[in-house]
């Protein structure tokens, strides 16, 4: 017998009698403002929040990341000096100072944003860059994680990540320090889709 069949027949023989699958409620509490709830949650996770598109985005970036040389943009709102497609070898995205990408979904409960290969195009631009700036239409913020998992990306994308604040580690002394292996800072800008 093949291993697969051995395992499945052992499981079948040993699994206990059927137990019902419960319905999962949506647990909506309808907060007054999803944007404010998102902002609070994101900041709790050490993410940065910007209420509206800066009038001069280039100046905003220069000011926020004065040493940045390579800005990889995956959005039409800003050109940058790299596109994700420039990185045919995904490891090369290591040279990016700032990645700019749009998220299709924000989660007020946790301050998370969704990114998939559709938005990133080259997935490593989201992790190997030093910093990341994420545009999010406030209309795309949902209340909680139950809402988030209704998004079709989780059934369609080959890779989907709920990213919540910059990478961190609490492996020494239990207190979270930034960065760990991923980005050093993560900023979300409320930026309606034009």
């Amino acid at each position, binding site marked *: 017998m*093949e291993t697969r069949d051995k395992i499945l027949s*052992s499981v079948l023989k*040993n699994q206990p009698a059927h137990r019902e699958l419960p319905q999962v409620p949506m647990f909506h509490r309808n907060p007054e403002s999803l944007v404010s709830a998102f902002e609070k949650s994101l900041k709790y996770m050490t993410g940065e929040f910007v209420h509206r598109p800066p009038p001069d985005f280039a100046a905003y970036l220069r000011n926020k990341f004065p040493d940045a040389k390579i800005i990889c943009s995956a959005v039409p709102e800003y050109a940058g000096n790299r596109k994700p497609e420039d990185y045919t070898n995904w490891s090369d995205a290591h040279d990016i100072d700032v990645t700019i990408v749009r998220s299709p979904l924000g989660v007020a409960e946790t301050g998370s944003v969704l990114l998939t290969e559709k938005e990133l195009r080259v997935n490593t631009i989201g992790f190997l860059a030093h910093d990341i700036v994420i545009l999010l239409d406030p209309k795309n913020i949902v209340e909680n994680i139950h809402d988030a998992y209704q998004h079709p990306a989780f059934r369609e*994308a080959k890779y*989907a990540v709920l990213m919540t604040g910059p990478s961190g580690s609490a*492996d020494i002394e239990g207190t979270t320090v930034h960065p760990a*292996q991923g980005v050093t800072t993560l900023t979300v800008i409320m930026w309606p889709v034009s």
Partner: protein
Amino acid sequence: MSAVDQAASAAKFIEDKTHEAHFDELLWMIRQKRDYAASQVPEWEELRDLASAIKEHTLSNLAEYLEMFEASAKRNGAIVHWALDAHEHNQIVYDILQSWNADALVKSKSMLTEECDTMKFLELRGITVTETDLGERIQQLDHERPAHIVAPAWQKTTQDVANLFARVYGSDPTKVDPVYLAHVMREHTRALILEAKAGMTGGNFAISETGAIVTVTNEGNADLSGNTPARRIHSVGIEKIIPKDEHLAVFIRLLTRSATGMPITQYTSHFRGPREGGEMHIVIVDNGRSTRLGMEKFWLSLKCIRCAACMNTCPVFRRSGGLSYGSTYMGPIGLITMPTFDIRRYGELPFSSTLNGSCSNVCPVKINIHEQIYAWRSVMDEQHQIKFPKKEAMIVAGKVLSHPEAYRIATEATETALKELPRFAIYNHFNPWGYHRDVPAPAKETFHQWYKKNRMRNGSA
């Protein structure tokens, strides 16, 4: 292998006051953060009930869900392997790496690969394995197993890590600063991630409907290990299956809050298929789980989502250190799972508990941990896995507990004895817990004496 003597190893750990206090305080802080996080979610208890019921449903229909998962994963373009035990798992992983001519592997933290001793297997065959989780890497560099399933290096102080990195990486041992040390690790690991030809992750969940492997990390290392090389392997135990995304939501809300007290990890990642030109392999591992599924008293331990809340709250674990268990899974969840791997080696573990029940109370999937610990003790007794003093004490306790009058006399006598007996009679080898701890001062009266005086109305108790 010889039986693990957790009490003896814990005794060595306790001799070093600095580490004992450090570990205890750190875990208690995390336990308090967990309580705060839970208190912020009004439906917390309802979520625990749901999580428990979803897991029990899935485990009771596991064969069907496993087949569904396999079909979904194949549809997504992943290649699915099945491994009966640790050796088969390691051989499959090695064969895949061989087919890629990969001699270097970057991996994110996975308790399953610890359980299978995968790293050792691969390194003996000439493959360089780099752990990319900070805590796991610290343990790898120090040639130690994880001391905790969520934060493998928590048994070490910051000074320990500073000394280790100074020795291995030549960093400054006087900079006893977690930010600096995390930076040192990032700089040294980054190059290895960029050059690796193959990546590997474990899986916190595997979704039947979508074929997704879901990983939960703070560092982003599963995403880096899984995305930077074009080819990757995910190893996952059969019990990690859940039906759909709507069920995943319940677990994502519970897991991190229970583990670290944060609302969510920085990265909750869903790997469904290989990228263009890449490969994605999934190794589904049994390694004793399907047998445990048939154990009436113990199958519920398969609900575990590896949050470690039971460990953080356990007074024995906090004061013993995680390495004292000599096992992959430690603390309360280790006591009830390790004997299924090797009853001789881990036969003493179920006795490393005070049976206070706190582990069951914090468990996000409501495993009846303390009841299973007690049930394992009975098994060990039946199978003669208990050492003489423990067994003698249990026989006496069993007789006393089954006779109310004897119990009353015994407790009253104990209180008297604690007051009157000389120290050598209390701190002897029949009471291993007395070696390193002072027995609490005896109460002035037993509960029964107090009840009789204050509450008894009709002469009966």
